[in-house]
């Protein structure tokens, strides 16, 4: 059959036309499928932690402290509730609503989630790491920056939101003296390095999301992030025990922060990219210049 025969030409035209008809349909179906997915509907609420040997309740029967020798989780003090409410109304209510129950994110990329029942650790982490109040509420990511509110103010907001519906996890305080840094290194490679990179520098993930650098982070925030799973990060609850979280936290706050790292300038932890540039531009470059210097001497 010749390529110019009418049958071949007609088949080609039909297939092109078919592509243009079907492709928008496929995109539409895909978008509709994506629209049904709601990440806030997964079981984020009341995520406790296993293996607690200490559990303290208040008079009303609410758990205000739990944990073990590795990490203790404490509820923010109830006396901060009033301060927290005022701060919440001032800084958070415009997006998350007066009752902290969120605002549907119609037409915007970001969602303003329901905060009730997320647990004090979540609220404390977002505010105390400077991510909230967000610089640009419509942005996909709320990057870490210098905190707008003091640690005590963050704690107060967490206290007020928690007072609406008491929930877990509470604010953690890890006891790093009981941690094993070697186990932490292995757990870090297993659970964290796939996004934060093995050197903990963070990197770009798909679609304008980023895994942040793990340097200069207080230990309790590391635990908060692991236990609450902020933004894209998965929440590690049942699969990591408090002892293991303590080990990882120890590794992050000591070895990632101050690595025992001989061998000269680390080239920004960029690995072979930086090494390649140095090797080619500095290494080969300088030697080519030397080559010119020697070669042109008579």
């Amino acid at each position, binding site marked *: 059959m010749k390529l110019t025969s009418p049958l071949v030409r007609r088949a080609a035209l039909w297939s092109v036309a078919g592509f243009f008809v079907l492709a928008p349909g496929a995109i539409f179906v895909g978008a509709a499928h994506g629209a049904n997915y709601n990440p806030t509907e997964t079981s984020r609420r009341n995520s406790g932690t296993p293996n607690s040997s200490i559990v303290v309740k208040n008079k009303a029967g609410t758990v205000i402290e739990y944990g073990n020798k590795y990490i203790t989780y404490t509820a923010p003090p109830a006396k901060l509730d009033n301060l927290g409410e005022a701060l919440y109304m001032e800084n958070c209510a415009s997006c998350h609503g007066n009752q902290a129950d969120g605002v549907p994110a119609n037409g915007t990329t970001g969602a303003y989630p329901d905060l009730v029942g997320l647990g004090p650790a979540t609220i404390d982490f977002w505010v105390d790491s400077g991510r909230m109040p967000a610089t640009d509420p419509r942005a996909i990511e709320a990057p870490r920056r210098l905190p707008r509110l003091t640690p005590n103010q963050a704690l107060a907001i967490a206290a007020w939101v928690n007072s609406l519906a008491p929930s877990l996890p509470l604010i953690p305080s890890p006891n790093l003296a009981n941690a094993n*840094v070697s186990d932490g290194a292995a757990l870090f490679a297993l659970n964290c390095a796939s996004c934060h990179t093995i050197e903990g520098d963070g990197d770009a*993930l798909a679609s304008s999301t980023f895994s942040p650098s793990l340097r200069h982070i207080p230990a309790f925030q590391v635990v908060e992030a692991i236990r609450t799973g902020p933004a894209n990060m998965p929440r590690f609850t049942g699969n990591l025990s408090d002892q293991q979280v303590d080990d990882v936290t120890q590794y992050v706050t000591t070895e990632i922060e101050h690595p025992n790292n001989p061998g000269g300038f680390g080239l920004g932890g960029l690995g072979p990219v930086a*090494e390649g540039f140095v*090797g080619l531009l500095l290494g080969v470059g300088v030697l080519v210049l030397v*080559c010119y210097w020697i*070669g042109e001497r*008579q």
Partner: protein
Amino acid sequence: MSDVTATNQRAKRKAAGPYGKVGKALNELDDRLGVAKGGRTFMDKIFPDHWSFMLGEIALYSFLILLITGVFLTFYFIPSSAIVTYHGSYLPLDGQQVTQAFSSTVNISFAVRGGLLMRQMHHWACDIFVGALVVHMARVFFTGAFRKPRELNWTIGVTLLTLAIVNGFLGYSLPDDLVSGTGIRIAYSILLSIPFVGTYLAFFIFGGNFPGASTIPRFYILHCLIVPLIIIGLVGAHLFLLVRQKHTQFPGEGRTEKNVVGSPMFPVFMAKTTGFLFIVAGFTALLSAFAQINPIWQFGPYDASRISYAVQPDWYMGFLDGALRIWPSWSFHSFGHTIPFEVLVPALILPGIIFGLAYAWPMLERIYTKDNEIHHLLDRPSQRPKRTAVGVAALAFVTMLFIASSTDVIANFFHISLNSVLWAMRILTILVPLIAYPIAYKICKEMQGVHGAGKRKTHNIVSRTAEGEYLATPTPAYRDDLGHDLEATPVPTYIEVEPDEPDEGGVRIVDR
């Protein structure tokens, strides 16, 4: 005092005979081995004086450094996948189950005296080695030094580059750390992607499935013995052909297809090249002392269940990684078989085409230009605009692939979407070579019309007169660029005493 010294020296010289002490020793050697004739030919080998002819030596000397530091590393490295418990000075690994290969590499870095320096020198020398090969290859390509009669040497050179990349990858994999293990995993998958024979081939090379216990020992013997032996043999052949076919030269006064103009091997070139060896070695040592490379203790041991984000291979494998990253995920599933084009095309077919074209280039150019003459005089890149433009476009293409291997680093550094960077690299990789070709072509065409382009520049002497006026006086051009009549130096048929007065500037001319 000086009179006495002079008398003493004269007496010593007299006692040593007409050839001096060294000459006497050499005569003794010649009586037994007959080295004089070959030695004289070797010492009289003429090297044209142009800096770009020394680029290959960077590669040669960094290869020498690789051999020396590599031998040092073999004393302490244990090529075994056996699991041991690490107990050493790097605390975060203490008590972890690691392979002996990894444990011994960490020990080289922390416990062996000078071990880390040697490791870093080995690695930096490797990066420089492959880089110098590429630069040397570019010089040969752009000046047309690969043309008849030197096609065979070009072929050897391309093979050397391929082997250098392969051996670099093998060596990078030996420490069995998390990052290099990921690299082996990718290499294994690339082998698997070959239709029909992939599984058998992968099992044949890796001695079974991956991860397995035979990978490290096999890579070790390949990296330390087999591939280096082939490289050494080919380097020998490369240099033998260089001496046999004599050196190319740039066109200039007194330079024809029938002669070679330049400095003899001994003493001029010998002095230059020995100095260069020490500079390359010293510079590599400096770089290794001040710039860290491949800190495997931070990466930890390889484990199939672990992975680090943002890992790249060494730079010379970067173009492959980049091609893998930007290639769309097309694959073919049918009849119970999968042909993963997303791996097969960028990782095997594409490099096959790139290196195939490099091998075939001398032949392709001969067919295109119908030029079957012997060439000893080089082209200036601007004289052959089409070849230069093709070379620039090819380099641009590979460079774009290389940059594509750091999409995540670019996205993170400029804080833009990784997806945008990926798409930008897909478009740029096709677009940039297409733009580079006409630009390079046009620049070459323009340079052809510029007076004195390609001639080496000499400095101006700026002087200030008593009135305060500044004058720039040009200094004379290089001797080669002036119209000196050069006469061929007769090649001596017997060993003669060196004449008392030294050669002027050491430039000689011999018949080919």
